[in-house]
């Protein structure tokens, strides 16, 4: 009996099963990059344990000519198995007709034999033992060797790799040749053994012009540099650590005066998240753009300070790279579980502006927007990303910048303005926009000094326990909240060509899965419109979108339908109208998962749409 063989050009999933701490990451990235360089859209994802060495780790690469970047459900087409620990599980993940590349130096465990998949044995250990003396080198080059084998199997140009390796080791040119050699060892081994290429393979295209590959965390870090942030105060926590690291990396390249040995920025590793946010508040109070990056547990610890910044109206930027679960949860898995705790963080009546980027480009842009909004609105802005976009190399459009961009520094009175003023009142609403003027310490010898505090005060920042003054202030804060959308990015609406009664609301990293799901629905003859929420509080367009669709779905990567809750609460809309699409097992969202929730909930519509 002929075994089934998946046949797919530029549309498949390769997954690498490795042991963490074994140096596989850079080889795997090389592979993903080679697809990108072949002009084909690619979406790699690192699935790693909360541990440093010795546990299973995977790298899943989706290759998609159509440009679908969400995780694909339904198994992998080609598994590269380099970890005996997880091998028995890994083999089950291969789709019927798929391929299983493994190290056949020793015979395969009999329990791993399936009739419906194709085995590709490459004697990785034998080759490395033969070629290298040093144990460390053996391990390292084993990774490069299987990449070489893949090049042959999937028909990727070796020259693409050579170039990538050259770039990678630009500063250590001695390493170029050994790597290229190792690559060829694998390439030749595959050619020797198999009928190359496989039916699953890559064909050169031109589909990624104008695109880059970058992690969301790098983009946030770079965004903070472009936003003119000068103070980053943070505390290490997965998956946000690389935000501060990226800021430091870019800033050290772009803002360091080597001659004077001086930096136009400072990165402070705080003693904890409370301190990190306190520093951000102190620096912003003093007129510097300052931010922190953290994840859920850090946000919980910043809760008290968030209330202070809200109430005292001090700008602040907080980047929350969300991970899975309450408490410590699953620190290396993704989720959108902090929506409620961010929007309503802190005791008392508080509401915080939140932004939701979906890809690195949006991370870059919304980070800049966050600083502008923070100073304009004099309030903390929380940028919510997640592990999926934050830590994976994501394909997205080139970053853009205009040199004519004017950073919005908000309403800060300088010495001249103060001089011209009869009496300064910190919390007076002079312009009728609910936003008062602030002053920075040290501005004017006589005017503009005031006391910033978390206690109630009147319009002139004088402490008071008078109920009416307190209430006036709280009403102004609420009015400011309702006016905030004017300063925030508008939602992105994609309308189907056919008019549709179905509207799907999503935010952050759900975008790609939703887009793909909508395409699939459309292939079934069902049109759906989508709206990507960019910010809370919501633009009026969000309400209109809900009102103008009969069936509205809200996609939440959490258990409790948190964005749906906020929509209902902020827009006072009927819960009956908002159906949930929920996904919260820590894995990235796939189009399949979205469709599983959508299909049974479009009553009668499937037929109806088809008839139109």
């Amino acid at each position, binding site marked *: 009996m002929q075994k089934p063989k998946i046949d797919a050009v530029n549309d498949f999933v390769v997954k690498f099963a490795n042991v963490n701490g074994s140096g596989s990451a850079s080889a795997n990235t090389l592979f993903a990059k080679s697809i990108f360089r072949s002009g084909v859209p690619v979406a790699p994802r690192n699935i790693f344990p909360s541990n440093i060495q010795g546990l299973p780790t995977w790298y899943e690469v989706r290759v998609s000519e159509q440009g679908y970047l969400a995780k694909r459900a339904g198994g992998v087409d080609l598994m590269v198995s380099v970890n005996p620990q997880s091998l028995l599980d890994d083999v089950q993940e291969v789709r019927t007709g798929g391929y299983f590349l493994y190290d056949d130096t020793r015979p395969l465990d009999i329990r791993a034999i399936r009739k419906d998949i194709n085995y590709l044995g490459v004697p990785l250990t034998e080759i490395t033992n033969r070629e290298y003396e040093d144990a460390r080198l053996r391990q390292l080059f084993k990774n490069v060797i299987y990449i070489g084998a893949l090049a042959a199997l999937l028909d990727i140009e070796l020259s693409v790799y050579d170039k990538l390796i050259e770039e990678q080791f630009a500063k250590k040119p001695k390493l170029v040749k050994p790597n290229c050699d190792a690559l060829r060892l694998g390439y030749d081994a595959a050619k020797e053994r198999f009928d190359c290429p496989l039916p699953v393979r890559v064909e050169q295209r031109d589909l990624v012009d104008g*695109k880059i*590959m970058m992690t969301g965390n790098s983009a946030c870090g*770079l965004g903070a*540099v*472009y*936003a*003119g*942030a*000068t*103070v980053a*105060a943070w505390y290490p926590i997965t998956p946000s650590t690389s935000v501060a690291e990226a800021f430091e990396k*870019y800033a050290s390249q*772009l803002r360091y*005066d080597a001659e*004077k*040995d*001086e*930096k*136009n*920025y*400072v990165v*402070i590793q*705080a*003693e904890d998240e409370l*301190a990190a*946010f*306190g*520093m*951000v*508040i*102190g*620096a*912003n*109070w*003093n*007129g510097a753009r*300052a931010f922190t990056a953290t994840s859920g547990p850090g946000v919980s610890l910043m809760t008290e300070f968030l209330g*202070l910044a809200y109430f005292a109206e001090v700008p602040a930027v907080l980047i929350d790279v969300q991970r899975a679960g309450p408490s410590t949860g699953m620190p290396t898995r993704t989720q959108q579980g902090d929506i409620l705790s961010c929007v309503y963080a802190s005791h008392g009546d508080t509401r915080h502006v939140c932004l939701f980027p979906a890809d690195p480009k949006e991370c870059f842009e919304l980070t800049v927007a966050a600083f502008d909004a923070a100073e304009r609105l004099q309030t903390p802005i929380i940028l919510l990303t997640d592990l999926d976009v934050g830590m994976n190399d994501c394909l997205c459009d*080139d*970053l*853009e*910048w*205009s*040199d004519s961009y004017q*950073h919005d*520094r908000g309403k800060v009175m300088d010495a001249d303005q103060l001089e011209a003023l009869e009496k300064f009142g910190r919390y007076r609403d002079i312009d009728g926009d609910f936003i008062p003027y602030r002053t920075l*310490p*040290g501005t004017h*010898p*006589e005017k503009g*000094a*005031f*006391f*910033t*505090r*978390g*206690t109630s005060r009147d319009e002139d920042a*004088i*402490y*008071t326990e008078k109920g009416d003054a307190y209430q006036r202030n709280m009403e102004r804060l609420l009015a400011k909240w309702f006016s905030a959308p004017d300063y925030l990015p508008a939602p992105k609406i994609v309308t189907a060509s056919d008019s549709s009664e179905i509207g799907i609301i999503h935010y952050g990293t759900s975008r790609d899965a939703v887009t793909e799901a909508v395409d699939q629905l459309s292939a079934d003859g069902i049109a759906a419109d989508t709206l990507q929420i960019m910010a809370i509080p919501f633009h009026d367009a969000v309400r209109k979108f809900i009102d103008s669709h009969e069936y509205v779905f809200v996609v939440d990567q959490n258990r409790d339908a948190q964005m749906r809750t906020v929509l209902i609460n902020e827009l006072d809309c009927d819960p009956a109208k908002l159906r949930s699409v929920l996904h919260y097992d820590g894995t990235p969202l796939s189009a399949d998962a979205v469709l599983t929730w959508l299909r049974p909930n479009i009553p009668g519509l499937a037929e109806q749409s088809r008839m139109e």
Partner: protein
Amino acid sequence: MSYIKPQFRHPQLPANERGFTRTAYEGLISTLCAGCGHDSISAAIIQACWELSLEPHRIAKVSGIGCSSKSPTYFLNKSHGFNSVHGRMPSVATGAYAANHELTYIGVSGDGDSASIGMGQFAHVVRRNINMLYMVENNGCYGLTKGQDSATADEGSKSRTGQINPFENIDLVGVALEIGATFVARSFSGDKQQLVPLIKAAIAHRGFALIDVISPCVTFNNHHGSTKSYDYTREHVQAGNIVDFVPSETEITANYEEGASHNVALHDGSRLNLVKTTTDYDPGDRRNAIAALQDSRANNQILTGLIYIDPEEPDFHQMMKIANTPLNKIEMSTLCPGTSTLTDINQSLK
């Protein structure tokens, strides 16, 4: 409720070098209890800033929460102030200093604020050597929440309700010395003669300067049996060494009887003359300082004065190599790398 003070002043009040009278350094009328030690400290700060001829608006006041932390309202009305949250003043001060190293920072905290909820931040602001005066108004209790023992309450001290504190106290001076503070002093709110020059020295010191001031709470911790009462403190104070602050130009006359004097040069050109009253004390030697502290404890005494100073250790701004132009003053055009750089970055990500 707080009042604005009457603006009328005697026209012949003495002016300092910059032409300011003491009025320019005052604040709103205090709402603390009559006799509270904290008010004396406010007065000492006013005096010291006036004597130093600081520009009031170039000072920033930061505090946590407590009666002590309220007190920045009662001095330096022309300075910006930030009454933050309980125990977290150090981080707010750190951020503020990072943003602008040119202002003078005065942090005011309480023993509850610093040694209980704020213990972690206290330790870390010391470590970062933030250039600030960090004043602990230490009354061994939580004044604002009605007198509970704080972590600086001494073992065996009796509370107003008659309970004996069974816990070892945390001595912030000892902790600061242990973790490397560069200026460590203790004083008593009732000793303005000692406190004013100490404050001046602390402000002039480049780096973190702790002054732990015993500041009795007349309402909740001034009874017999308390070791933070006026009486107890007066009886047990040990004036370790007294400091005369000598500004860069002039030399002022010491108010204390002079002994053999010890000289420390500060980075702004000013000097400290140490007037040793008791021992041949060298405040430049940390081990010595620690030993002196241990001695005073063993003798049931409260060591006051300038206990330790290291004028050479780089402060946070230097350690972090932050630009000389304050970060909050650098133009966006300088900070933002612009379009062409972004094109290169895009290229590197292909």
